[in-house]
C-alpha cells in the first residue's frame, strides 16, 4: 500500500528577469542583463538591503549548484557566506626601516616588511552568486591522495557526469599566472579529451 503522492508545488515565477541599470566606477552607467544557467541567476540585481543571511549557492562534487541558507544557531552563523580571506586580494609589500616605522623596539637599521592587501575590483565579480574556487577548497586526488586537484575545485576527480545535465567547472583564477610577466591570465579556454582506459582501470566502477 502506498500513500497517494501529493503533487509537489511547482515553483513558477511570474516575474521576468529584466535588465537593470547601475553606475560603475562612479561615472560609467551600465545596463546589466541577468542570465539564468541551471537555475542560477547570474548578474541579478542585488537586493536593496544586504543581510548576512542571504542565501548563496554552493556546488556539490559534480559541480551542480545547491542553495545554502545561512542560519544562526546558538549565536553562530551556520552555512554562512563563503569567506575568501586574502586569496583574491593583491598584496603590496613595502620595506620600511626602523627609523621610518619609529617602533620603540626596533633599531634604526632594522627592516620591516609591511604587507598591504588591496581588495580586488568587485564590479563584475559580485554579480557571480556561485561560490568561487580558492586553494583551501582543493582536494587531494590520485591513488595515494597525494596529488592536489589544482586549479580545479569542482568537479571532483573521477565523478560521473550525466549527459544533458549542466555542471559548473570552477578553478582558482590566480593559479594561471604568467611566469614571464607575473600577470594573471586574462582569458582561458577549456578543453576535453578522450582518454583510453587501461583494462585494469576499467571495471573499478560500481556495477
Amino acid at each position, binding site marked *: 500500500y*502506498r500513500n*497517494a*503522492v*501529493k*503533487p*509537489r508545488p511547482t515553483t513558477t515565477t511570474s516575474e521576468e528577469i529584466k535588465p537593470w541599470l547601475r553606475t560603475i566606477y562612479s561615472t560609467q552607467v551600465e545596463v546589466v542583463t541577468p542570465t539564468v*544557467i*541551471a537555475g542560477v541567476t547570474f548578474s541579478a540585481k542585488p537586493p536593496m538591503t544586504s543581510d548576512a543571511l542571504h542565501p548563496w549557492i554552493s556546488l556539490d562534487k559534480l*559541480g551542480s549548484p545547491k542553495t545554502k541558507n545561512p542560519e544562526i544557531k546558538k549565536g553562530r552563523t551556520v552555512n554562512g557566506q563563503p569567506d575568501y580571506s586574502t586569496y583574491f586580494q593583491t598584496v603590496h609589500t613595502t620595506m620600511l626601516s626602523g627609523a621610518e616605522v619609529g617602533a620603540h623596539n626596533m633599531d634604526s637599521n632594522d627592516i620591516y616588511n609591511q604587507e598591504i592587501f588591496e581588495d580586488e575590483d568587485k564590479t*563584475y*565579480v559580485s554579480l*557571480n552568486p*556561485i561560490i*568561487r*574556487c580558492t586553494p583551501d577548497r582543493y582536494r587531494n586526488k590520485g591513488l595515494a591522495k597525494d596529488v592536489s*586537484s*589544482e*586549479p*580545479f575545485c569542482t*568537479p571532483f*576527480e*573521477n*565523478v*560521473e*557526469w*550525466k*549527459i*544533458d*545535465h*549542466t*555542471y*559548473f*567547472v*570552477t*578553478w*582558482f*583564477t590566480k*593559479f*594561471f599566472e*604568467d611566469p*614571464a*610577466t607575473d600577470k*594573471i*591570465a*586574462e*582569458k*582561458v*579556454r*577549456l*578543453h*576535453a*579529451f*578522450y*582518454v*583510453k*582506459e587501461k583494462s585494469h582501470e576499467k571495471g573499478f*566502477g*560500481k*556495477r
Partner: protein
Amino acid sequence: SLKGAFFSTEWVKNVDGLYAMEPTEEWLQDKYEKRILLAIQPDYITDEEFDPWAHGLLLHVIMGSRVFKNTKEQLALQDAGLSDDTWYYVALTMPTMVVVACVAMYFFLHLNKNHRDIRDVRQFAVNQKHRVLGSFKSYNKYKKLKNRPYSELPTHSKKTSKQ
C-alpha cells in the same frame, strides 16, 4: 595535444573562474560511458606548448544513471498524484474471489444439509483412534475421547495355579 581535443570552449574571462558545461550525447560516440580529461589552457600558453595532463581532471561521462529508476514521465505523473491503480484491482480481486467462494460453499452446504452422510468418514476417524490399546484415561492425549463401544479386555499375563 590540442588536436586530440574533441571539445573546446571559446576564450572566456579567467576572473570569473567558472564555466557551465553540459555534456551532450555526441560526446559518448554511441557508447554508454566515456572517460574524458578536462584541462584549462591560459592565454599565455600556446597551443603547441599546452600539456593537458599537467593539471587535467579525469572524469566519466555516462549516458544516464546506472540503476533503473522511474523515468521523468513516471516521476511527473507521480508528482501530479496520478499513480496508475492497476494494483488496486489486483489487490482487491483476490479477497473478493475468496469471499465469493466461501459464500457459495456456505449456501451449497446449507442446501444439502439433509442429504449429507459422512458416517463412514467419522467411523474411519474413530477406528483410527481405537488402535490405541489400554485405558485411554491414562493417555492424556486421548483423555477426552469416550472410548465406550470397547471395554478394556482383561489381561491375564500371569497364570494362576488353578489354571
